[in-house]
């Protein structure tokens, strides 16, 4: 019974965080990642903004030295405008409060994870990392 309840509570906690920035497309995207995370790991117990923050800030090893964190291009402050490390191009803030359309187009989101996770981590991101990342930035 307790094992059954735990994930339910976790889902509620995530649901609460999303409600603050309610956007059906983002909710659906997170639900999809939650389902994948459950399939990938039996111990998955919901997304964590705190883990998302750690992922965002790094530093990580394994990726390219000049992009050892998401923050390398997006700056440590997710409400600030970022900048591509190589081209100098401005990047709109990652925080949903600053850029409301963030994490609402699944194809776009997958494309970015697909490109940026190898640059930063040297590998693909797991579904849990993707959900943590979005959960963190949806609350910023």
């Amino acid at each position, binding site marked *: 019974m307790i094992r059954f309840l735990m994930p339910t509570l976790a889902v509620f906690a995530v649901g609460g965080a999303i409600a603050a920035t309610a956007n059906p497309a983002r909710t659906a995207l997170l639900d999809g990642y939650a389902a994948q995370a459950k399939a990938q790991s039996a111990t998955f117990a919901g997304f964590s903004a705190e883990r998302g923050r750690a992922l965002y800030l790094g530093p990580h090893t394994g990726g390219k030295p000049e992009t050892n964190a998401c923050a390398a291009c997006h700056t440590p402050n997710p409400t600030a405008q970022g*900048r*591509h490390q*190589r*081209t*100098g*191009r401005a990047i709109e803030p990652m925080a949903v409060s600053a850029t409301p359309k963030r994490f609402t187009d699944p194809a776009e989101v997958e494309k970015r994870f697909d*490109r940026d996770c190898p*640059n930063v981590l040297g590998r693909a991101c797991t579904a849990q990392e993707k959900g943590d990342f979005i959960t963190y930035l949806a609350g910023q």
Partner: protein
Amino acid sequence: MPRRLAAASVLLLLSGVTSSANEFERVRPVTNDATRKECGECHMAFQPGLLPAGSWTRIMDGLDDHFGEKASLPPGPATEIRAYLTGNAAGRGDPALLRITEQRWWLREHRFRPEVWLRKDVLSKANCEACHRDAARGLYDDD
């Protein structure tokens, strides 16, 4: 012949084009949505008129390792973008060179002290917008 030259100069003067007139100082802005979106993520979407068709073809052939970045696209948008870029490409330039910033005409226009390229607001030669405010609209004669 001198007559025609003179007439041409008058036309140039009338249209306000400077003596350094160059077909690249005003190029058609990007009008294709897929190109604007997919090729405008990491840098501004460069106008097709800045490179010859051969360069665009090679860039589109190599998106998996695009100057060290993965920029690959699904087949649909890739085909559309390829057709748009090659169909509106520059009439001149060296198709063996992938970069705009390696083309002879570009190097001739940008003979700056090396420190310029290290300026934090510039960062890269490809950051046209750092110096050309209206680069995204294809206007490079703004100095």
